[in-house]
């Protein structure tokens, strides 16, 4: 089930306001964070542990640890990064208990083309490696109906990605983290981060292309 809770134009309070809200027990502040961050947190947790139920518990334990530790938060990182780090620590411990310690790095597919090689000219051609036919341009999505369909298409495509690609894509393109932050959080190399992100984007682009052009490429 995919939910769209990100309302365009909603102003997220600053860290100072959020931290103060958490410390004083302001329910509106917590509900806002729960709505805004839980999806990403769940996805992040799911990349370490074996089941969705287990991932929910990781998210739950993370928030409990946040309630416990918010008094000691010093603001050296953003609040969200601080919370995500707590989550990764809890998730790693749990993964060890579940004996599911799959190293992130071992699963990165490399040297597999992200675009179907059939779309490029072969070695005997005058322009080897050039497009056989250019990709079709996509329409803009000014109508609400179309925009909604595009969003559903993208959401379904993201859900279908391998979990590690989902996590990197979520952190980069939904949460807006930079490459270095993602590497630090997940303890992966720059190259692995980029391979995961690029494969994820290329796959989602392929789904959008199919949606826009109706071509089963």
């Amino acid at each position, binding site marked *: 089930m995919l939910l769209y809770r990100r309302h365009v134009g909603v102003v997220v309070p600053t860290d100072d306001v959020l931290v103060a809200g958490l410390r004083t027990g302001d329910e509106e502040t917590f509900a806002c964070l729960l709505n805004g961050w839980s999806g990403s947190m769940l996805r992040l947790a799911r990349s370490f542990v074996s089941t969705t139920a287990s991932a929910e518990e990781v998210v739950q334990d993370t928030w409990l640890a946040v309630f416990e530790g918010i008094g000691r938060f010093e603001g050296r990182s953003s609040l969200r990064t601080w919370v995500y780090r707590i989550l990764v620590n809890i998730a790693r411990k749990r993964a060890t208990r579940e004996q599911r310690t799959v190293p992130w790095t071992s699963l990165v597919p490399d040297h597999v083309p992200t675009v179907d090689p059939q779309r490029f000219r072969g070695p005997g051609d005058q322009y080897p490696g*050039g497009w056989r036919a250019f990709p079709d341009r996509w329409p803009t999505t000014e109508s609400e109906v179309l925009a909604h369909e595009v969003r559903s298409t993208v959401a379904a495509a993201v859900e279908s990605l391998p979990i590690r690609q989902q996590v990197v894509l979520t952190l980069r393109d939904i949460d807006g983290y930079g490459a270095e932050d993602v590497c630090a959080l997940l303890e992966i190399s720059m190259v692995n981060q980029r391979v995961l992100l690029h494969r994820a984007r*290329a796959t989602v682009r392929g789904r959008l292309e199919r949606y826009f052009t109706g071509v089963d490429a």
Partner: protein
Amino acid sequence: MTCEELVELVTAYLDGALDPETEQRFVEHLELCDGCEIYVEQIRRTAAEVGQVEPEDLSAETRDRLLEAFRSFPR
């Protein structure tokens, strides 16, 4: 740089992570090739569309439990 090579470097390019020489070849190719220009634009658009999607949410039970835990947390 061929089109087939360029499409694999788009994310590195957008992150400013290509070495200067490769970046120059990338940019030069892009200026001359409509197909790759379209492709790069579509990857940008894809990243922007992904940014509009909210991932799956917590179950209602977990959510309620957490709201209750927050309410009753000793301060």
